[in-house]
């Protein structure tokens, strides 16, 4: 099996995700970028699991999917809360506290 191709795909997704988190100012797009990172992890886990002939990788990936859903659920709730109070989901505008 060609493990490399899967790992390269995952690495590319990971880098795109990190870039998105660092440059995007829209709260929802930041969360989507985090999803890219988590999906890169899933590809890694499934590819490694198959490579080793070990089921644990796929189980780990299932856990990651479930937790990612919970994280995004909570994350969107908080972004929605910010939108209700400020009419904006620009994360760079959230700067009431400094120092």
């Amino acid at each position, binding site marked *: 099996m060609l493990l490399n191709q899967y790992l390269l795909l995952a690495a590319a997704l990971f880098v795109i995700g990190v870039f998105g988190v660092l440059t995007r100012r829209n709260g929802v797009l930041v969360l989507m970028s985090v999803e890219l990172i988590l999906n890169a*992890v899933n590809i890694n886990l499934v590819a490694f699991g198959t490579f080793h002939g070990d089921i644990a990788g796929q189980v780990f990936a299932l856990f990651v999917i479930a937790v990612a859903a919970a994280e995004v659920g909570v994350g969107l709730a908080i972004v929605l*809360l910010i939108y209700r109070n400020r009419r904006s989901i620009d994360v760079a505008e959230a700067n009431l506290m400094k*120092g």
Partner: protein
Amino acid sequence: MLTLFAQIDQPAFVRPDIDWHAVAPELLLLGLGALLTMLDLIFLDRIRRFIPTLTGLAFLVPLIPILTLWSQSDDLPRVMFDGAYVVDRYSLALKVLFLLSGYVVVLLSSDYMAEGDYYDSEYYQLISASILGMVVMSSARDLVSIFIALELISIPAYLMAAWRKRDLKSNEAGLKFMLMGVFASGIMLYGMSLLYGFAGDTRLSAVAEALDRGESAPLITLAIVFTAIGFGFKVSAVPFHSWAPDTYEGAPTPLTAFLAVASKSAGFVALIAIVLVGFSTQADVVEPLMWVLAALSMTVGNLIAIRQTNIVRMLAYSGIAQAGYMLAPLAVYGETFEGTTNPANAIVNYLLVYAAMNLGAFAVVILVARKTRSGEISSYGGLMNYSPGLGAAMTLFLFSLAGVPPVGGWWAKFQIFNVLTQNASWAGISLAIIVAVNSVIAAFYYLNVAKQMWFMPAPDLDHTPIRLPAPLATALAITLVATIVFGILPGIVGDLSDFTSLAAR
């Protein structure tokens, strides 16, 4: 794609043996938490008054199986799931720490939440979920269970940080905490997936063996650094600390105490397991990383703490510095240690003392804020005049945080010095010097608060004593006793670094 799955040839599923006694604390906490949620949904307002008390009880009940497990210490360690879940003296002591800090946080919260006009009982259910994650974390010796425990701790905490829905500061606290937390756990997971790739097994002991015979050094370093970043965020080590002061200031103050003590301790527990077990063969990569994180955390934390005027922000930066002290022993963990002077023992003992003194300091902050409605350090003027008991307690907590004998903090710090200097290595000695210099810097801003209380007049000349509600008084008593006892009877908890069992398979 089908051929991908066809290659996996697994034997039929066999139900693993479960040691019900060993998992009884977790199951009790889970059951009671679920029961409270249901009671709340059925009885609504008729039961809301009692939810804080019931949640407190739910944290105390799991102590019973922990005590029975502790008393049968011949049977320890109890190992489940091929070494993925270990119950030993080390994990039992940490479970007691987490349950008791959860109890104290509930005591701190009950008046604050009841007076705050915000959704009430859900807060306690989220705290129970978070504490359950910590209790699981202290036994987890496997990448999957560490990850699940970490998320179980963090996700309720994101919600609780944003608890005051109409307060923009609280919203911002939740947003920053959540975005940074989710990002950090993504990076950590990528590191973990690489570790799994090396080992083909998620258990930490298997990861250690695989890393030892690993050929690809750059990739191993990458995996270790990515994994460490996730925990660096959790323990708010510099440079992953930027969320901490803002979240601490904006979140409800009892939750701040929870994040600063329980959540940070859980991060350290995971870090101990993953570094001392999983990376036990990679000291040459991990030690420099931990050295830099420790030195940066304490120096940056202390220097910024000096110029804070808000006491919660000051405690946040002081917490970053304290995290630096606790990271320091990990910078020398690859050396050989004799007896009870070893990194795991030093860190766990520091965690116990830190929980007592920091929760105590937050209890006083909450009490004073009830009267002055202010978080400014200058509002502590005259505290010794109108509430001498409270002032004396705060002085004790501050002395302990600064590391002045004979209260708990000095002994915990002494342990750190012992570990750093035992082998007289270059890394250990240099870090010990940095810790010493930082302790002096830290004493300056801790004692500044004490100076305000003792020598400055009350800013508004209002000398009515602070009313002490029963839950807060209990919390204060517990933390005060613990802080003093750890100081005058050092080593009372004994050696908690059962290394053979920490690395059990």
